[in-house]
């Protein structure tokens, strides 16, 4: 890429020699210029073809998923493949939906992801505000707990947490799947940074007006960190909507299981090789997220990448 830029630079910036230049030289120069132009055109073509190939590598699996989901089972085994099935089999979607209590899975997924999000908002906003704006004894120690939590991935402690939840009789309940994530160390970390960046003058002005502290927080401070809140909300919702590991480990029956578990289970119900039904089920899980992604691509990418960079 850098090379290409250089080449473009040289062609544009190449100093013309004065009018006294010999004809011969001009002709070789113009030949060179034509060559350069051709090279640039070729590079541009290679660039575009490469980009299209790249898109294909990432889009093809999804197109293949859609295509398979509309085929009969024998059609899935025909090669070269028919990308657009002649008679789309919509029945596959009904079959996938009927392999288990999917309405139930769907409701569970919504309840858990939304429940986690609401509780996280309620716990991280006051906590991050306190850490950012108040001086109090032991705040370093308490923030240390946040930092240690930030370092502990859920994948690491599922065994003791399982025993704990089973002692509380919270296995197979929505609450059991929500509570461990009712707060987020990552959210506190992000939001604390945002609260610290708000200028003191604004706060002083509000205090002079004798506004109650909670009113200042709700009416002035929270709206100012709204972009960070939206970012975090997107991040949290997608992560918990997609989560397979935690609901798998913390449930032993269907009552609180979520969509990803239901989709993974289709294979057990329908047998390993019914790829058409499996892909139909898979699409039920993927489609909403992909639609949301293409509608608010910028925001979502910012949410994830920003979290990575900051």
């Amino acid at each position: 890429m850098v090379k290409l830029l250089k080449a473009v630079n040289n062609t544009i910036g190449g100093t013309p020699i004065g009018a006294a230049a010999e004809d011969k030289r001009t002709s070789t120069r113009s030949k060179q210029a034509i060559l350069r132009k051709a090279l640039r055109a070729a590079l541009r073509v290679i660039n575009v073809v490469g980009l299209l190939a790249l898109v294909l590598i990432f889009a093809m699996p999804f197109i293949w998923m859609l295509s398979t989901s509309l085929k009969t089972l024998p059609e899935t085994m025909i090669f070269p493949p028919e990308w657009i099935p002649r008679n789309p089999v919509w029945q596959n979607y009904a079959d996938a939906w009927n392999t288990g209590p999917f309405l139930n899975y769907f409701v569970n997924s919504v309840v858990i992801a939304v429940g986690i999000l609401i509780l996280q908002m309620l716990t991280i906003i006051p906590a991050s505000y306190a850490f950012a704006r108040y001086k109090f004894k032991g705040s370093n120690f308490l923030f240390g707990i946040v930092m240690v939590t930030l370092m502990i991935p859920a994948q690491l402690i599922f065994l003791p947490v399982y025993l704990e939840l089973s002692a509380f009789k919270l296995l197979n309940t929505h609450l059991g799947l929500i509570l461990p994530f009712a707060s987020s160390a990552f959210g506190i970390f992000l939001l604390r940074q945002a609260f610290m960046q708000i200028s003191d003058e604004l706060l002083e002005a509000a205090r002079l007006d004798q506004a109650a502290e909670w009113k200042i927080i709700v009416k002035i401070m929270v709206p100012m960190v709204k972009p960070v809140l939206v970012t975090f909300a997107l991040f949290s919702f997608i992560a918990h909507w997609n989560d397979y590991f935690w609901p798998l480990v913390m449930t032993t029956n269907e009552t609180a299981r979520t969509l990803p578990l239901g989709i993974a289970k289709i294979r057990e119900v329908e047998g390993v090789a019914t790829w058409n039904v499996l892909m139909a089920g898979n699409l039920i899980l993927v489609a909403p997220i992909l639609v949301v992604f293409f509608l608010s691509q910028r925001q979502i990418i910012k949410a994830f990448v920003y979290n990575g960079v900051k």
Partner: protein
Amino acid sequence: MTVWEKLRPYGMVAPAIIIFSLFFIYPIFYMIYLSMFDWNFVSPTKTFVGIQNFKDLLTEPDFRQVLSNTTIYTLLTVTLTTGIALLLALWLNRKSFFHGFVQGAIFSPHIISLVSISLLWSWLMDPEYGLLNWVIGLAGFGKLEWLSHPSTSLISLVMVAVWKGLGYNALVFIAGLQSIPSDIYEAASLDRSKPWTTFTKLILPMLSPTIFFLVIINMIGSFQVFETIAIMTQGGPINSTNTLVYYIYEYGFRFFKIGYASAAGVILLVIVGILTMIYFKLLSNRVHYR
């Protein structure tokens, strides 16, 4: 200052701190405690065995293979993802509608559930009717067994992980590239420095915090790989894709050897702990500079 004003900050952090203590801090100690016992989860008594579980683990050939699988998987995934993503970032770092579209396309797997990705790739990698075997057949190669043969199963999983992680990594790199001040590029081009020199002497050093960040993040993630393995291979064939978290899961929830599984958990804790320490050291440095 009233009593209420003194107590207010504690009240505000309390809910979060209670959740963290109950579900993150306490379980760590509980796991370390359990790792020194022999317990099958149902029996009312736990038998204290000291460090016997760790001794058993380290002499168990299966566990050694699990450690080596996890390490190989991690090294391959991290090098390939970070390396290819850097190249993609240099290529895709442009502001146009088309480039934005390409960036969105390669990023899309990152927000898809690993369940979907695992099922989709199991189908693509099907030895009989998978699309991948058809494609490499077109290119004149013979069929591969992909996930069903021990020699290709682990690398197949790496492929899936790279496919999923590439977009995210590339976009973080692009964000890093865009934070390099443009006058530095201009200075380099005024100096007529060669593209390769610009890359190694200028871009690479400026990007080094981003590279380091991504390597550590990818490592922590890869060491905990679970979903793809649980859905695509269940650790097989012949243990060739069994990794740490899956191993702990199997010993805890299938064989009910809680102490033994906890001991494996403690080993994972140490590995992830070291990696996260490095990561936070880096993170705090970056925060200071801003």
